[in-house]
């Protein structure tokens, strides 16, 4: 199935592209953009569909909860972008109904998402640091602060020993 799909999706356009001025695509490459068609119902929302079976398979092997979270982020964007683009809110103000997916995506970045995501993304390292600090504090409480220093020294000596042995 993979071979047949690959031949149709990538193989045929590559071969025809080598022989002709433009490649002939059986399935649309790299995606079909519906942003202009859905502009009336979903203003300022980039909508496009790709037919890459490889991405479909990647989605199956990536952690389920990560994919579910991504889908949640996608749904939130679909719900909130039209609200943010409404004249009452006026946040996504640069968008025009004739914009394609790429232009919509870029204008949204400039108008809102660049600033919003600056610290939105910093929640992840905060969570990681918090976990590390709680582990650090718990270990210090259970075994004493000097145990951490001894652990550090032994790790350092072990690394040196491995390095010398190699």
């Amino acid at each position, binding site marked *: 199935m993979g071979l047949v799909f690959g031949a149709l999706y990538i193989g045929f356009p590559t071969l025809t592209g080598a022989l002709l001025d433009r490649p002939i695509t059986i399935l649309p490459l790299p995606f079909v953009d519906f942003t202009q068609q859905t502009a009336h119902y979903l203003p300022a929302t980039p909508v496009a569909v*790709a037919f890459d079976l490889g991405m479909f398979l990647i989605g*199956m092997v990536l952690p389920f909860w990560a994919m579910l979270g*991504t889908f949640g982020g996608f749904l939130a964007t679909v719900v909130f*972008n039209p609200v943010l683009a409404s004249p009452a809110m006026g946040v996504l103000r640069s968008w025009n109904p004739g914009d394609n997916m790429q232009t919509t995506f870029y204008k*949204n970045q400039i108008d809102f998402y660049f600033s919003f995501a600056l610290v*939105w993304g910093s929640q992840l390292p905060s969570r990681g640091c918090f976990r590390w600090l709680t582990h650090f504090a718990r270990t210090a409480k259970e075994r004493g602060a000097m145990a951490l220093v001894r652990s550090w020294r032994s790790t350092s000596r072990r690394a*040196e020993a491995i390095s010398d042995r190699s």
Partner: protein
Amino acid sequence: MIVATYGVVVALYIGVSTWLLYMTDGKVHWPVFGVMVFYALLYTPIVSYVTARLEGIAGEVLTIPFVREATLIFSGYQGVAVWFLPMPLYNYGQMTVFYRQCELTGTRFSSIWKSEILLTPIIIVGSLLFAHLIWSLGPIPGPQYLFAQEWWEVTAAQQSMVFSSTLGGFTEFEEAFNSTYIFAGLAIGGILFGGFTWLGAPTFFVYGLVRGLNQTLPFVIIRSSSAL
């Protein structure tokens, strides 16, 4: 030995970058030099250490966004050359996992280093050869390379927005930088993260949520649908 190796590597990074900036501007920009020393002596070791521990504790990687952008903007440098410098800004934490895997499988570290020494020149020559071959096949972006044709403009515009931050005056970066939305992101993100953590939501779900925002792009839809 390990500390000395790291010292030599970061000294080379800082030396080469300072020299390149000197060749471009005709002077040494000391705040940028200070930023590189900060990366080499504080940021990279701390982030690498925390990531290494975090990998063992929770299987997570510590990634702090926009560190490069923030530090270079605060350095006060005027121009775009600084964005193209090689900087000692890395997270070596995941290499700890790799070395632990080698240790567990009985692979000698010297074997890995020998293979790296052998591979590096092959990769350099191979990359140049294939880049030249692919470049000569047709114009990039062009009709032969459909994805690049569709996306290069957005990618270039996003990069130029960040690069414009050190140009001075009113730039695209100034246009995109809005403190109200930054605080909104902090507040909403904090509430959501606190709420999901309190509810005991899996870490991957929170990661996915952050990555999924403003990503109604074709590959996100197909990947999410396959998981569901």
